[in-house]
């Protein structure tokens, strides 16, 4: 059975009968297990192109399904459903619906790069995982993952000031994800951190939250980076056909407005 037909043998797709007689022969038990005939009609023929258009996904077409990535994968060892080889296959086949079944876990890639290290075809599966997570979010299949929110909080600080202050990143991340800082393990952590520190060191730490570290004369770099990121974002949206969707939505939204004006 080809890997993309894996879903056919999921419990919900298997027909079995406790008692079944066919042509006068009792075939109850294991013999009565069937896979229903099916027509696969939900291909997204552009899926591979779309993923390739996003950073990290450029080499997805090179994959020849050896499975080294999944074999090496840190997350797969903890959650067997996390299967880069399988997802790359689905992307190349255009099986979007099947890919969407795993939409809530693809972002969990920890970027350890064991897959990229093991890959004999330079697919850079770690990049494909990131591209796929972005694709899911850009297409509106998932909300921004905690990882995306963290990347956002972190990167905007870097782009704005040239440096980060880790305390501020943590506080902003907890705020944006609606988590409390008052968790027993966090409190314990801070306690142990403070246990041996001299007062001067504590003052210095406190001070860094007020006088935030920043790179001098950073304004030019900040503007140039922002300009570049906005350009890239527009490219990605175009590659995913999102611009025409936005245009359509705008036109539709404009119609009732016109009527109202009349």
């Amino acid at each position, binding site marked *: 059975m080809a890997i993309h037909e894996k879903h056919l043998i999921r419990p919900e797709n298997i027909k079995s009968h406790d008692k079944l007689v066919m042509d006068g022969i009792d075939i109850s038990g294991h013999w009565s297990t069937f896979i229903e005939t099916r027509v696969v009609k939900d291909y997204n023929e552009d899926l591979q192109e779309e993923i390739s258009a996003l*950073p*990290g996904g450029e080499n997805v077409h090179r994959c020849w399904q050896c499975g080294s990535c999944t074999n090496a994968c*840190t*997350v797969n060892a*903890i959650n067997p459903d996390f299967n880069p080889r399988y997802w790359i296959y689905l992307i190349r086949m255009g099986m979007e619906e099947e890919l969407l079944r795993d939409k809530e876990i693809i972002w*969990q890639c*920890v*970027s*350890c*790069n*064991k897959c990229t*290290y093991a890959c004999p075809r330079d697919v*850079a599966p770690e*990049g494909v995982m*990131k591209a796929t997570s*972005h694709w899911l979010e850009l297409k509106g299949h998932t909300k921004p*993952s*905690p*990882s*995306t929110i*963290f*990347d*956002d909080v*972190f*990167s905007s600080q*870097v*782009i704005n000031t*040239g*440096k*980060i*202050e*880790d305390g501020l990143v*943590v506080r902003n*991340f*907890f705020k944006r*994800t609606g988590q409390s800082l008052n968790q*027993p*393990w966090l409190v*314990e*952590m801070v306690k*142990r*951190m403070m*246990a*041996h*520190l001299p007062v001067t*060191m504590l003052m210095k730490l406190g001070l*860094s939250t007020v006088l935030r*570290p920043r*790179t*001098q*004369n*950073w304004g*030019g*770099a900040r*503007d*140039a*980076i922002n*300009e*570049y990121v906005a350009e*890239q974002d527009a490219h990605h949206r175009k590659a995913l056909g999102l611009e025409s969707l936005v245009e359509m939505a705008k036109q539709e939204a404009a119609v009732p407005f016109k009527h109202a004006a009349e």
Partner: protein
Amino acid sequence: MTDNRTDKYKKVAYYPGCALEGTGHAYNRSTKEVGKALGLELEDVKNWNCCGAMEVKNIDPKVQTYLSSRVMSQAVNEMGHSVVMAPCNGCYHNLKKAEYDLKNDETSRQVVDRISAKAGHKTYKAGEIETIHALDWIKHGIGEEGLKSRVKKSLKGMKVANYYGCMYTRPRHIFPEKDKGAGSESTSKPHFMDDLLAAAGAANVDFPLKTACCGGAHTLSDSDMSTKLVLNILKAAEASGANVIATECPTCHSGLEMHQIRAEKKFGVKTNVKILYFTQLLGMALGLSPKKVGVHENMSDSFDLLQQQGLA
């Protein structure tokens, strides 16, 4: 490559990076102290910026390449250095990655050139500087023999699991100097930290998870995953007979410390293995006090162990 590095690494540009000014402060302090004790000079990269860490590449990989290239540009064009040393695996990895991309990819060169011009500084060009890790710096700048002759307090009771993490060896292609046979670092079984600590008298244990992942990228965004990954590492170290894990990356180090506490508080799984930066261990071997190398700044309280071993 043998071996003008003893001279070349005597004085290098130092790129501490953001983590070493925050949670990884003990690593910063101990690296500088070890440098002083060994007669290796560090000069801070002027007006440096963040390398992009693990996060900016997910917004756009080429922005990360630019950020790292600016650090190298500062070291070359503002200071005239030919070697930059980064103790943080993330910084080290990103500078190496930028070097690789600028050497091999035209689009990366164009993007970096464009942003550098608008930012108003000279574009960094591949080949202008050599990026090294703190491990390379000591291994080639002093060497095991040089280290042995300077040891004042042997680490002999310290059973060490050497933990290198992900970014020091992966992906292979950005580290062209590794896997070059005898004397070079290995990407599958790294040994520079083992070599240095052994020279300082430590008893290294056979540790299978040297390059396992601590989940550092998702330490807050997917904490349960990180706790599981860290517990694997802590338990494997204990099973290997280690009483301390030596680290060479601030993200790994704080990840191990943080999730050791989280595992205990949230899942009731307690582990006792201590966590110290390799520079802290080397510093104490060179006769520096635990305070001098920032042991009091660690969350993992190792004073009892250090006292037992006569290091504190």
